[in-house]
């Protein structure tokens, strides 16, 4: 059996006195689509950022393709990696097509990279006329779709989606969910998605992990999510109103 693509062991991260990750043990197998759910401020984004080395862990270990995540291992991992950021994180100074083709421009001539970028834009429902526009001229939903086109442009083996449907109307959100599922199925890419959107969870996930107060409270196949006994998971899935008790205290990032 091959090593998991991503593994975290006892991952801890605090911001000042606030413990955001408190010993997270997570495994993501090759080709699976894992969706991490949890309330706002439970450390989901911090978990992704710590795996990628954008935040340094206070304790614990990250393994990528079975190896401890040194700078060289991370650099190798990033070569076949794509990420959709929560607010798209498009480069303001570059036109849309250069954003999408950012990685491709290092590997092929500009004309070819542009053609590929336009194809990827079409895949997320954007026409070729968008290619020469600047990110500032796009609506929030369009920026998100351009971000998705950039994430999949180079056919990565691992893709992270940070709140992929936030800010989209229900129809576009459904289309993005379907697209993410199709990409994972067609290419065999490993996907880790963070979301609050239960429709996304049911469409995208093979497996679900619930992060609560910095720990993985529950994880299992998406089919078992609705049958699980865990009261916190059940409350989250059914969207029960939150009890504003002291446990609602959260970290600085989602």
């Amino acid at each position: 059996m091959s090593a998991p693509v991503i593994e975290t062991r006892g991952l801890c991260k605090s911001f000042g006195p606030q413990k955001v990750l408190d010993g997270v043990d997570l495994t993501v197998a090759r080709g699976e689509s894992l969706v991490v759910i949890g309330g706002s401020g439970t450390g989901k984004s911090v978990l992704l950022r710590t795996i990628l080395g954008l935040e340094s862990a206070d304790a614990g270990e990250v393994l990528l393709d079975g190896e401890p995540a040194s700078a060289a291992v991370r650099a190798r991992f990033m070569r076949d990696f794509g990420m959709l950021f929560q607010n798209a994180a498009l480069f303001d100074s570059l036109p849309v097509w250069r954003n999408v083709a950012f990685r491709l421009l290092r590997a092929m001539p500009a004309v070819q990279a542009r053609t590929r970028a336009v194809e990827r834009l079409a895949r997320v429902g954007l026409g070729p006329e968008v290619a020469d526009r600047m990110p500032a001229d796009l609506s929030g939903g369009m920026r998100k779709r351009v971000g998705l086109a950039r994430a999949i442009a180079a056919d990565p083996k691992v893709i992270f989606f940070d709140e992929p449907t936030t800010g989209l109307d229900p129809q576009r959100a459904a289309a993005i969910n379907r697209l993410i599922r199709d990409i994972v199925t067609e290419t065999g890419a490993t996907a880790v998605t963070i979301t609050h959107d239960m429709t996304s969870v049911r469409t995208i996930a093979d497996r679900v992990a619930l992060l609560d107060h910095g720990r993985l409270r529950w994880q299992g196949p998406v089919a078992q999510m609705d049958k699980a006994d865990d009261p916190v998971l059940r409350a989250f899935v059914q969207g029960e109103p939150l009890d504003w008790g002291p446990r609602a205290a959260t970290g600085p990032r989602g």
Partner: protein
Amino acid sequence: MTRAAPNPFRPDPIRAVGRATLALLRGIGAVAIFAARGLAAPGFSPRLLAEQLLRIGWLSLPVVGLTALFTGAALALQINAGGERFQAGDVVPAIVAIGMVRELGPVLGGLMVAARVASSIAAEIGSMRVTEQVDALVTLSTDPMGWLVTPRLWAAILSVPVLVGVGDTIGIMGGWLIGTTTLGFTSQAYLANSWAYLETWDVLSGLLKGAAFGFIVALAGCWFGMKAGRGAAGVGRATTNAVVAASVGILAANFVLTGLFFT
């Protein structure tokens, strides 16, 4: 012999000075490492360098030119007014030229570039940081230092001396304008007097100062931009800090370089 436990409520000036000194040294070390990485980070792109040369150099030309013009003109009036007290009005062209190329051209040019460029770099990189664009670069296998910092540092080091050279010329022409229209110099006499006392080292030292000031301006903008806190307030603070640090850095570096070059 037992030692008394330290009283937490009693101020300990020695410890406070020690902490402040260590913090200062840590800060200087961090900036030095950042600068060294910024100058030599991998991923050099001629396209990015050309873009920054245009933004830092070419687009700063109007403000540096106007500053030099007015400074040269005012300098001519001042030297004439002061020089007349001891019948030395004839030295106006030489002192304007030497004053511009050695001191006022580089310092005022540097300060104008600091106001325009350090703020713009800090705001741009700071905004990129808070909107996760810097993180996006990392996920696209691109070193943010090579993409953002290296082209800005080299563009400023290369373009500010050129701006200083152009500013020096315009400043001398500002003095010439006043000299020929108000102070009774002929054009030929003014220019001949300007060149007669000007030495190569006067010009060269000013251009070297310009390179150092360009480096300080871009370094301040990049450093504070990369360290910007979250949100609009964080970017605002980064911008202010960059301009203040660049301006003070230029004045301090000018003192040190003047001492090195002319004593």
